[in-house]
Structures are given as C-alpha cells and as structure tokens.
C-alpha cells in the first residue's frame, strides 16, 4: 500500500485526475452539498461589518466597521451570552463525564445480562426524542396549574412554585434535563472502553489483594484516562456552541428567565426570526465562530503536546 501511495505521488496532477475520475465523481455530490450549504454563505458574514438592508444587499449596504460589535460589548449582551454559554457547557462537561463514568463502572459490575440490557435501553431512550418533546416533558412537570411537581407539592400541603418565572432555578433544571438526555448515550462510550481493558489486570489486582474499590481506583480509572482526556478536550473545543434545541424548547421567548438561560444560539435565533435583526445576529455568530475556532485549535494543540496520536491535525 505504501508503495502504491509513493507511486501515486510521482504521477502528474492531470494523470492523477484522470486516473481517479470515478472516485472524484463519487465525492462530487458531497462537495456540492458543502459548497452550497456551508461555504457559499460564508461571505455573508460580512454583514457583521455593515448596516445591512435588503435593498442594497450584503455588499451594497453601508460599511460601519466594528460598530455592531461595539454595541454588543457596550450593552453587556456579549458578556452575558458568552458567560452563560461557557458556564453551562462546563457544567455539562464536568458533571456529564463524572456521571457517565460512574454509570459505566456500575453497569460493568452488574452480572445479570438481562438487567444490564434493560437498564441500558432505558437510559439511552431520552437520546432518541426530539427537543420539542423535551419541551412537552418540561411543561408536564413544571407548569404552575397542572405540572406534576406542583401537583405533588399541593398534595403534600406545600405552596406551589411558579417555576417559569424564577430565573434562579433554571440552571439546575437545564443541567438535570441535559444529564437526563445525554448520560445514557455518553456512558456507552465509557462502557465500551471498560470492556476493552485487559481482564488480566483485574485478575492480577485481585491476586495482590485489591478489593473492589481499589480495583476501580488503580485499574479502571487509570485505564479510562485517555478516553476521558480526549472527550473532555474535544468538548472544551466546542464550549462556545450551545445545545440550541434544549434551551429553546425549555425557555423559548420567556424573557424573565434570560439572565440565567440565554445562550448565543437562542439569542441569535430570536434576533433572526422575531426581530429580523441580521447585523447584530451576524456579529454574534462571527464572534462565536472565530472564538470557537481558536478554542478548537488550542484544544488540539494541547492534545498534541500530551500525545501526538490523539490530535485531530
């Protein structure tokens, strides 16, 4: 195979094009797709530097420099959005990974194959439903008049809570819903990694007199470390990108909750769809993209320093 590759490299470009024309053609639909839906809109990011109006179009609208960004920074909006997006993602990453590892280790301890299968299927189920259904579930549980939680509070004689107007409660709710929806999915990865651990390590540990806790502490956890580091670093690379569907279907246009729940995606969506505000939303989007890009690069650079084989590029 190596020989073949070396041989390919020596051929002229034209020759290569002709020889691999069928393979190239097979890639054409995908290439067109990404050009049309991903690359073609990129010049539109110029809107961030203009006072966009429909009549003059993207490149005909007056140029305003960094004014749109200035507004975002001065109004404090950019800071709030960045803070919320990053803090939520940090919570998701830290709590998510801890819970996923814990579940994976426990699943591995369970002997009954039937029980393992059933519980795994149950934990994985929330991953399959749409974000809209997450909204339905939230409505069922949390609304003031008929919500299951308030129903329970009333039955026990307590005072029902107006959950949809208490911004302070929502970070907890959102994190719980996120864990509910993604833990089953994430634990599969760790479970597979545990299954990949050499069984003789456990046997050796047992012979040396290690109890169950010590086996987890000295065999399982160290073996999961590479998987953990990679998953965390990659999620850190995406820390500027929020889970839009989750936030939008839980909060939507409920402005009384924005201070603790508005993330970049929801704010951009609202600006585009209900305010027709293309300049500010493009500016926020461009800021998110560039910042996110820098973060991925940094994460990748760190991974490279730890272990070259794990780096993306």
């Amino acid at each position, binding site marked *: 195979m190596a020989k073949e590759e070396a041989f390919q490299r020596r051929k002229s470009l034209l020759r290569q094009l002709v020889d691999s024309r069928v393979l190239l053609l097979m890639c054409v639909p995908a290439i067109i797709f990404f050009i049309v839906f991903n690359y073609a*809109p990129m010049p539109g990011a110029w809107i961030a530097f203009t006072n966009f109006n429909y009549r003059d179009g993207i490149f005909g609208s007056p140029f305003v420099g960094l004014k749109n960004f200035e507004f975002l920074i001065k109004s404090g909006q950019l800071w709030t959005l960045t803070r919320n997006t990053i803090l939520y993602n940090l919570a998701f990453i830290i709590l998510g990974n801890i819970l996923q590892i814990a579940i994976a280790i*426990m699943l591995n*301890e369970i002997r009954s194959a039937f029980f393992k299968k059933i519980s795994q299927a149950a934990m994985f189920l929330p991953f399959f439903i749409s974000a809209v259904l997450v909204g339905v579930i939230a409505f*069922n549980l949390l609304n003031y008049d008929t919500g299951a939680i308030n129903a329970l509070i009333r039955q026990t004689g307590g005072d029902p809570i107006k959950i949809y107007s208490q911004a302070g409660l929502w970070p907890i709710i959102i994190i719980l819903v996120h864990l509910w929806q993604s833990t089953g999915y994430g634990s599969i990865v760790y479970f597979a990694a545990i299954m990949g651990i050499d069984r003789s390590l456990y046997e050796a540990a047992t012979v040396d007199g290690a109890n169950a806790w010590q086996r987890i502490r000295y065999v399982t956890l160290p073996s999961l470390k590479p998987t953990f580091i990679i998953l965390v670093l*990659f999620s850190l690379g995406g820390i500027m990108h929020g889970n839009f569907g989750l936030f939008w279907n839980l909060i939507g246009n409920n402005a009384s909750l924005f201070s603790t729940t508005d993330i970049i995606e929801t704010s951009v969506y609202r*600006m*585009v769809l209900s305010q027709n505000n293309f300049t500010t939303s493009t500016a926020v989007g461009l800021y998110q993209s560039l910042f996110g890009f820098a973060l991925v690069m940094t994460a990748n650079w760190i991974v490279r320093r730890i272990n070259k*084989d794990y780096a993306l590029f």
Partner: protein
Amino acid sequence: MTDRIETIIGQGGVGLAPAKPRAVKLDRSDIILQSISYVFVTLFALFCLAPFVLILSASFSSEAAIMKTGFGILPKDFTLTAYEWIFRAPRQVVGSYIVTITMTVCGTAIGLFIISMTGYALNRKDFPFRNYIAFFIYFTTLFSAGLAPTFLWVARDLGLRGNYLAVFLQLLMTPWLIILMKNFMRTVPYEIIESGKMDGAGDFRIFLSLCLPMMKPALATIGLFLALAYWNEWYLSSLYLGSTVEFKPLQYHLYNVINTANALRNSVAGSNVSVTNLPSNTLKMASAIVAIGPILLLYPFIQRYFVSGITIGAVKG
C-alpha cells in the same frame, strides 16, 4: 490530518467482547459495590423512563381530573377522549405524518447513498485527493457562516423559503456521518478492492457490488442516525417553513400545538371553527405520544445499531 482522526476514533475501544467473569470469590467490598450499582442504575433508569410514563398517563387522563389535581404518574380517570379529538378530524396529523415519512424515507435513502459513496472514496488509500476532500468537509465543523448569513442565503438567494427542500436538503449529510462511514469502510480489506480491480471492475462497480454488501451494519447505523434526524426535525422547519405550508413536519407540528393555543385548536378542528371544552392539557400529551409513537415502537429493534455507531464514532459524538 484525517489519518489522525482515524487514530483517535480507533482508540474508542471498539468491539464489545463479553467480559470474562472475574474470580468467583466475592469479598465484602464486591458485594457492597454490586448492591450500590444495582440500586443506582435502577434509580437512574427509572429517572430516564419516568417522563415518558408521565406523558403517556396524562394522555389517557380526563381533562377535569388533570385540572383538579395535576399530572401524575398514573392515568387519572382513564379515558381516550384526547385521542378521539385527534382522530376525529385527523387531517393535520395525517398530513404531517405523510410529510415526515416521505422526507425520512427519501432523505435517508439519498443521504445514505451519498454518504457511503463519499466515505468509500475517502477511505481508498490510492485516491490521491482524499486528504484534501476530507479536510474540505471537516473544515465546516471548525468554522461556519453562522445562522443569519446562512438563513439569508438559503431563504433569499436560493429562494427556498416555504419550500420543503430547504429542510430536506440540509439534513442529507453531516461531516460527522461521512467520517463515521469512512471509518466503517476500513473494515473492508484492501485485498477485496484489489481483487475487484484485477477482475477489471471500475471503482464505482467495486463500491456497489463488493463493498456495499459488506457494509450492512454500517448502513443500518448511519441510516438510523439520518432517519432519526429527519424524524426529529423541527428547527429548520421553524426557520424556513414557518406557517407557509399547510402540513408541517410532525415535530414542528407538535411544537406549534404545544406553544400556541390556535395551533392546538386548528389541529383538531380546522381553522375558523370555535371549539369549547377543548381538553388542551391532555390533548398536548396525546399529540406528543402520536408524534413519538413510531420511535417508541421501533426502539427495541434499532437501539443496538446506535450503540455500535457511537462506539466507533466515539470522539465526534
């Protein structure tokens, strides 16, 4: 650089070999750990299932009972009223079902074909442009134009506002699915491709009659990811379809039923009909069950394919 991606994903611990039973002798710590595991896993599994039970129960409850005591884990005053309302004038729901099923079937078939073609070509070691094309695709995950410019481009310049194609086309593929397929393709030994070449088969022919038949598990996994994306789609519909189409994709229909009182009424009675005594709370829950029903029914059969997909594509999940 894509070789790097392969390396990482290769580390994901593929291959769910059954664990060999450990030494039989259990000491106290083993018993404690196992008990904790059973209890905690049971609790967490119930936590994951409970919301589904809540919705199911609510959909079979009477509106009066719900208004009086709220939603609960068991049906209150069991009745089929909510479902009767939905199926009395099923035009909206049936229309949405047809739109979503059509999109899901066609989108999955076409997307799967393009994704597997691309994945195959990108995995061919003798394809000199594979790294450039892979990077071209991968780059879109690193940098994007953002929602507003994309929206303007698709809705205005491509003229797809109010057109089902705006939704249908954009869901056809993702970089992650292409990389996943490329990794699956590595399981086809290169010798098979070479033997095909020896017999004088063209590259496309090798793909179609040699590789695809060996790729059934991969096709199932990626096809299911695609189908799920089409079935659960509501976001692009909210952007590009809005209220311009009569029959909204199913989840977007549900979104409207939940969030606007008018949509709820129209969905069961048609517009311009005044309805009194609409059991709105239970009706929302019944609509939700109608919208996820097929997923819940198929779930036991499809779940395991996703497990293999996640395991192989661990990193980019």
